[in-house]
């Protein structure tokens, strides 16, 4: 799955140094390829066809469609890995936790599907799974050096950047 996740050199974990996924609305085509590759990356088979035909995986991405006056615009939204996440505070089972590099992760075994996290996440990017006792959220494909949605976006509408890098591109 690729190289180790990069921490900053001095081991400090300044939040803004942490890389996150930023979407650029002016570039997003709403094609949905990020969702296809997100499901595949988190599937057992890691094969696009098997993932979609046999496994039933919710993608960790929500594609927002915005209808302004004349044009339709889209952007892909996923967990913002907040510095001080409300979902972890609301989680009754300790399933929702933050690893030491700042990524908010969900431990499927501990989750009971109470959906308190969904109740408090202001971005609405945690999805209830069909099994009713677990949720799906973005884990930045931790362990691989670039999230699969970013790697496969045909128009580079989502990028994996630290905050300064992202602000430079607004």
């Amino acid at each position, binding site marked *: 799955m690729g190289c180790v996740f990069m921490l900053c050199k001095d081991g400090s974990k300044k*939040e803004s140094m942490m890389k996150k996924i*930023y*979407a650029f*609305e002016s570039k997003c085509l709403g094609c949905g390829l990020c969702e296809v590759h997100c499901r595949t990356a988190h599937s057992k088979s890691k094969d696009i066809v098997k993932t979609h035909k046999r496994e039933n995986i919710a993608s960790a991405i*929500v594609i*927002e*469609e*915005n*209808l*302004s006056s004349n044009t339709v615009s889209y*952007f892909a*939204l996923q967990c*913002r890995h*907040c*510095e*001080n*996440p*409300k979902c972890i*505070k*609301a989680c*009754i*089972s*300790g399933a929702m936790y933050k690893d030491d590099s700042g990524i908010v992760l969900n431990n499927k*075994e*501990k989750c*009971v*599907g*109470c*959906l*308190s*996290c*969904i*109740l*408090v*996440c*202001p*971005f*609405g*990017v*945690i*999805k*209830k799974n069909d099994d*009713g*006792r677990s949720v799906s959220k973005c884990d930045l494909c931790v362990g691989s050096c670039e999230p699969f949605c970013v790697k496969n976006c045909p128009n580079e509408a989502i990028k994996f950047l630290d*905050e300064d890098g*992202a*602000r430079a591109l*607004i």
Partner: protein
Amino acid sequence: MKKYLIIGNSAAGVNAAVAIRTNDKTGDVKIISCEEFNSYGRPLISYYLNGKVKSENIYCHDEDFYRSMNLEVLLNTKAEKVDTIKKEVLVGLGERISRISYDKLLIATGSSPFIPYIKNLDFNLQKNVFTFLTYKDSVKLKEKITKNSRVVIAGAGLIGLKAAEGLFGQVASITVVDLDNRVMASVLDKSEADIIQAHIEQKFISFKLQTSICEVQGENNVSRVILSNGETLNCDILVVAVGVRPNVVLAKEAGIKTSKGMFVDEYMQTSVKDIYAAGDCVESLDLLTGESKVFALWPNASNQGGIAGLNMTGIKTRTPKTFAMNSISFFGLQLTSAGIINNSRSIDTFVDSTKNKLRKLNVLNDNLIGFVLINDNQRAGIYTSLINDKVGLSTLAYDITSKDIGFNVYSKQERTKKIWDYKGGY
């Protein structure tokens, strides 16, 4: 080296300890708990009861959590008395009584079940009478029940119904009794409550509403209960889950101003200097009504615990006002609600319900003040933040009643600002 003492090892207590440790690497942090288990998720006890969660998974944190954070935990330790002058707490350690001194104290004792007066009810005498608040309750209950136990549950609130769900399939019959005219009266309006009730009744759990248990009968255990409407029910197991009361005895005796719960200022400090309080045992200001009341909510307890911890280490942090919010499931029916949800003329209510889904939004002068979602809970947090930020609905990109909620409800600038600047929050 500062000495921090925390009474209570649940959401508020543990979050406070973590907040303290992240900001005071060297302080001595002690947590005392009258329970014998490490910090566990209280709402999980019903999942333990029906085997959905195994005992080793009930704990919030893994074994070495406390050691890695260098927090000292004293289980089975009950705080007897707080000496605010000497800044000491008398604790009962088994038979022995000892004193623990503190520089900063946090009382996070949570709440305990409220036992209404019921004739000949005597918890010490009768072995088949239970409350359902702690993991211990759940463990004792699980040991006691048999395939043909006939169970009567007093209280159709969250705890009562969760107890019912926990027992379901392991006992002969379950009857739930409640004074109110509907289940989950404190959370739901009649129309929604009836949906929940109908769904649960499909599991052959029967309800006795607008009545209460006034008497129990039986040699040493309870074998029959008498209801105020005259009915009598055979009963092998009686679970009393009519409500909870904040544990404020310790505080009252220490002279801390309390009403139902302890009064705290914006920085979670009680009326006595260097004593803080957080969680189910405090009064919080309701964002929507402005009243001061007790919120028995896990997210609120974690939040307030964290803030109290910060303030105890001198980092001035204000507590945000809060409001009721719940996310709970009964037999697969997913209920998510927040804010003011009962109908009233002044609030215009929008209800969109199909076969087994319901979406109810309460709007008052251009602000969303409450919602109830049944089996249609995707992205509920966006509604919650609309309530929390008191967003003017007219400023949004579309009318939230017109379609499923999405982050695209915010304008472009607002969206970008939220994505870039939002750091999460207290």
